[in-house]
């Protein structure tokens, strides 16, 4: 079965990212497919490579990156939400005259249409938020 995963909150502040990660891992382990993980609202903050959480705590961004690498996941950060929050890749940086980018490995920035498309292509959509 194909799951679409929507993450609406940033890492650490709410448990949404943790629950989404645990659900995604469990689904993969059971042999399901993950059509896409879409990050919306503050969820886009899961996609910055600039975090350095305390050493005795989990590194949520890194967990997404590693999970994506291992299972070839499509991690999509909404461009409009990302612009409001300051998540940028090199292209976005150039477009908006920013002198730095912060996107993490394994994430890509794209349009909201990707969320609707995820809804169309997935058998189930799971919403994790506040």
């Amino acid at each position, binding site marked *: *079965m194909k*799951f679409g995963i929507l993450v*609406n909150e940033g890492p650490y502040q709410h*448990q*949404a990212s943790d*629950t989404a990660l*645990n*659900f995604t*891992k*469990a*689904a993969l*382990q*059971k042999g*399901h497919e993950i059509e896409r993980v879409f990050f919306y609202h503050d969820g886009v903050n899961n996609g910055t490579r600039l975090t350095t959480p305390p050493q005795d705590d989990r590194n949520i961004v890194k967990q997404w990156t590693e999970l994506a690498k291992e299972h070839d996941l499509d991690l999509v950060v909404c461009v409009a939400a990302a612009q409001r929050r300051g998540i940028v890749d090199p292209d976005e940086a150039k477009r908006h005259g920013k002198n730095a980018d912060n996107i993490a490995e394994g994430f890509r920035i794209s349009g909201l249409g990707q969320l609707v498309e995820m809804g169309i292509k997935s*058998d*189930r*959509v*799971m*919403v*994790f*938020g*506040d």
Partner: protein
Amino acid sequence: MLHTINKSPFEKNSLETCLRLAKPGSDILLIEDGVYSAIKGSSVEPKLREATKEHTVYALGPDLKARGIEENRLIDGIKVVGYDGFVDLAADNDRVQSWL
């Protein structure tokens, strides 16, 4: 339909609205701070007990454990599942609704 609730029933109205709108026979899964609904002896217990008659109510074990809620503290009839059970519930139901 699977309904998930991730909010404490003492803080937010998510449980209440879910119970008002969920069709009898639905599955309800308490996750994150939503698992606090499952505690026996709280002011929410009558509502939850009523819900277990119309729905199958589950609580996510890892979230209960994180919060120090032992299984003997749960309202009778609530079933505990892990993340794999969460996935099964989502797959076995035709659709999922998250009450945030």
